[in-house]
C-alpha cells in the first residue's frame, strides 16, 4: 500500500471509525502487530485462568493432606493409600521420601547418614519439580506485561508514520484526513495495553501465590525430613 492509497482510504471513509473498520484500514505491519497482541492476550488469559485453577487445587490438596498427615495415622498406611495413584504437591513429597526410605530398608542399607542424605535429595528434587510445575508459563505473563506496550507502541508509530506519509501525499491537513490514520494507529497501543495490564497484574499475583505454596512445601519437606531422621536414629 503506497502512501497515496492510504490517503485515498482516509479520504473515502473518514466517518467510519468502528473497531473493525479501523483494523481493516490499518497498514499490514500494524495489522500484524495487532493480531500478535490479540493472540498474546488470549494466551496470557488462558495461562491466568489455568494457574488460578491450579493454585486453588494445590492449596486444597495441601490442606487435605496436612489434615490427614497430622491426624496421627501411621505413615505406612498413609503411604499405602497414596502410592497407588500419582500424587501431587505435598503428597508427592511424602511419597517420594517414603519410597526412598522403604527402598533403603528393603535393600538393607547400613549407613543412617547415607539414608538421611538420600531422603533430603529426593525431597529437594520433588520440591523443584513441584515449583517448576507451578511457575511454568508465568514468565510468559511477565513478558507480555513488559513488552506488550512496546509492541503496541511500535504499531502506533508505524501507523502514524504511514498516515503522515498519506497526509503529505494528499496535501491536505484537515482533521478529517489526519484523524482516521492516527485513530487506527492508536488502536495498536490500546490493544497492547489491553494485553499487558492484566498480564502484569496476574503475574505479580500468581508469582506471589506460587512463592507462598513452595514455602509451605519446603516447610513440610524439612519437617518430614526431621521426622524420618528421628526414625532412622531410633531404628539404628
Amino acid at each position: 500500500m503506497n502512501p497515496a492509497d492510504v490517503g485515498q482510504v482516509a479520504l473515502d471513509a473518514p466517518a467510519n471509525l468502528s473497531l473493525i473498520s479501523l483494523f481493516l484500514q490499518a497498514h499490514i505491519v500494524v495489522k500484524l502487530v495487532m493480531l500478535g497482541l490479540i493472540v498474546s492476550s488470549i494466551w496470557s488469559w488462558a495461562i491466568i485462568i489455568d494457574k488460578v485453577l491450579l493454585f486453588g487445587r494445590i492449596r486444597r490438596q495441601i490442606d487435605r493432606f496436612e489434615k490427614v498427615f497430622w491426624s496421627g495415622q501411621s505413615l505406612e498406611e498413609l503411604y499405602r493409600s497414596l502410592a497407588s495413584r500419582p500424587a501431587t504437591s505435598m503428597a508427592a513429597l511424602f511419597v517420594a521420601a517414603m519410597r526412598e526410605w522403604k527402598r533403603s530398608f528393603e535393600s538393607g542399607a547400613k549407613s543412617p547418614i547415607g539414608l538421611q542424605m538420600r531422603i533430603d535429595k529426593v525431597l529437594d528434587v520433588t520440591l523443584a519439580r513441584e515449583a517448576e510445575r507451578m511457575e511454568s508459563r508465568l514468565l510468559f505473563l511477565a513478558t507480555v506485561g513488559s513488552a506488550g506496550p512496546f509492541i503496541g507502541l511500535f504499531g502506533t508509530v508505524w501507523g502514524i508514520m504511514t498516515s503522515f506519509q498519506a497526509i503529505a501525499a494528499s496535501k491536505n491537513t484537515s482533521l478529517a484526513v489526519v484523524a482516521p490514520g492516527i485513530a487506527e494507529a492508536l488502536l495498536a497501543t490500546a490493544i497492547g495495553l489491553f494485553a499487558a495490564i492484566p498480564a502484569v497484574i496476574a503475574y505479580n499475583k500468581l508469582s506471589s501465590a506460587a512463592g507462598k505454596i513452595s514455602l509451605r512445601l519446603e516447610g513440610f519437606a524439612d519437617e518430614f525430613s526431621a521426622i524420618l531422621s528421628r526414625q532412622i536414629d531410633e531404628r539404628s
Partner: protein
Amino acid sequence: MRAGLVTSVAAHLSLLAWGLIGLPSSKPFDVTMVEAMPVDLVPIAEVTSLQKGKKTAEVKDKPSPNKPAEKETPKPSPAPPKPTPPATPPPPPPPKAEPTPPAPKPPEPTPAPPEPAPPEPAPPEPAKPEPAPPEPTPEPAPQQQAEAAPPQPAPKPRVKPTPPKPVQTAEAPKKPAEKTSQQQSQSTAESKFDADRIAALLDRQKPTGGETASQEPESFGAEEARNPSARMTQSEIDALRSQVQRCWNIPVGWTDPSEVTVTIRFSLNQDGTVNGVPSIQQYPASQYGTVAAESAVRAVLQCGPYQLPVEKYNLWSEVQMRFSPQG
C-alpha cells in the same frame, strides 16, 4: 490448560462482539456554531446603509438599504378588491335614494345621454334614471363597459366633465389604488353631497400602520452585532476637531501649511479623556517639524475630555487627526 485456553478465547470473542455491537462507532462531537466575524472591505459609503445582520442571509455585494417602508395605503395587491366594494355599495343607495333626494338628478341625466361631452350637469348621470346603475350603456367609451361598476358613483362625474373621465377609467385598471384616492379627494372636495352619499363613499379600509419591515433581505453579519449604521456624522467629527482646535496654537511665524501639517493618532477613553500619549504619525521634515508635531500633541492632551456621543465609542476610540493651519 485446555479449559483455560477455551475460556480465554471465548472471553475475547465475546469482548470483541461487545465492542462491535455495544460500542457503536464513535459519535461526532457536538459542534456549536461559533460566530466568525465576517471581515469585508467595503467602501465607507456602504457602511452607512448596512442593515441589521442575519447569519443565514445571503452574502451580497450591496447591503440591503434601510428603506423607509411604504405606506400601507398604496399597497397594490390588497387595494384593488377594496375599491370595488365602495363602488358597489353606491348602487344600492341610489335606488333607495332616488325616490327622495335624487329627484333633482333624474332630470339632469335625461338630457345627458345623447351628448356625453357636455359639461358637469348632464354627463355622468345617464345611468341614474334607470334603477340599474351598473348599466353604463350611455357612456361612450367601450372600455368603460368592462369596468362598469367603478364609474357608476354619482359624485365623480359631476366634478369632472366626462371627457377626462374616459382617460381615467382607461388608466384605472392599471392603478386602481390611485383611482380610489382620487375618488376620495373628489368626493370630499364636493360639499354638496348629502350625508348618505358621503357615508357610502367613505373609505372603509382600516387605518394601517406607518411602517412595515423592509422587504429587502438582511445583510450578512452577526445578528446581535452593534448596529453598524451608527457612524460618526460629519458634525460629530467637526465637533471633535473644533474642540481640539481651540487649544492648538499654530506655531508662530510659520505660515506655510506644508511646514505645519502634522498627523497624529491618539486613543480615547469612554469618558472622552485621552488614553496614553498621542503618537505622531507624520510630521514635516523641516526643522520645525518636531515642534509642530509636539504642539499638536499638546493640543490634544490639553483639550480633553472631549464631548462625544458615548454610544458610538467604538468609532472614536481611536482617532487619527490631521493638523493643518487650514483646518
